[in-house]
């Protein structure tokens, strides 16, 4: 595999930033998963596609809008009708999915090199993300493991809640540095740590 370089570049500055009067409100990090794969099913093949995803990755995704599964090193969720995003710490998951999802069921797109995964965690994560996206991030409206697709201005983002106070964001590599910088500015008032 080609070695990947983080698109965040010099904008990625580990350490404590912003408001330092109190404990950091959020922790920002780049998770760099080995695989980010999109699975699409043809109309009527949704159940077969979900079964194929389960056999290839072990993720039993519910057939509900935005519903997903979040485990320690892998996650998946539906982000559009008949479309699911699979994120896995291991590389090469795309090949496993290619074998499981036949061309009669749907198609598999490897996005690992085209997307950047950013994690926002901490007690003020909901607050910081609410400043960027017009989406209800409260636990009632956005439960753990659920995902959604939305946009910050023109920057498309896919968001999954992977913990009570933790969100994983997927953005295009080409926009990742700009988005990361905006995210850092938004987190300044609550204080943030980059790890």
């Amino acid at each position: 595999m080609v070695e990947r370089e983080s698109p965040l570049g010099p904008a990625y500055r580990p350490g404590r930033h912003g408001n330092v009067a109190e404990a950091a409100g959020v922790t920002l990090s780049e998770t760099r998963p080995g695989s980010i794969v999109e699975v699409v099913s043809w109309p009527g093949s949704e159940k077969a596609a979900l079964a194929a995803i389960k056999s290839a990755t072990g993720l039993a995704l519910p057939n509900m809008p935005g519903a997903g599964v979040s485990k320690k090193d892998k996650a998946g969720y539906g982000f559009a009708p008949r479309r699911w995003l699979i994120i896995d710490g291991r590389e090469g998951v795309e090949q496993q999915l290619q074998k499981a999802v036949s061309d009669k069921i749907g198609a598999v797109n490897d996005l690992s090199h085209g997307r950047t995964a950013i994690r926002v965690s901490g007690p003020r994560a909901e607050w910081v993300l609410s400043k960027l996206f017009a989406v209800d991030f409260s636990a009632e409206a956005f439960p753990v493991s659920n995902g959604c697709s939305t946009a910050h201005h023109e920057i498309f983002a896919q968001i999954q809640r992977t913990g009570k106070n933790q969100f994983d964001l997927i953005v295009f590599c080409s926009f990742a540095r700009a988005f990361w910088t905006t995210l850092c500015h938004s987190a300044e008032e609550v204080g943030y740590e980059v790890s």
Partner: protein
Amino acid sequence: MRISCPYCGTRDVAEFTYQGDATITRPDPASTDQNTWNAFVYDRANPAGKHSELWQHSGGCRTHLVVERDTVTHVITSVAFAGAKRKPVSAAAPKRKAPARKAATRGKAPS
């Protein structure tokens, strides 16, 4: 204005892109009738009231939607996937006939 996407839920209109009048149907591609094609490309009812229109959730799930919207009050009465079987167009947004054009008035040199 907010639109309730059948997949994503209620979202701000900024996430959506307007895709035009949903009542227009494409003529037979084999047709060579210029009036029919002219009506398809240019003629729109522009009603003050209920209107059936296409929107794409471009900043979200990217599906195309048929939205029934009141153009005066912006009240949205229904949203459905554009691929789903469409309901008959409501009486408030009638399908218009192509206006008759006189062939003699087209391409005539100014006198």
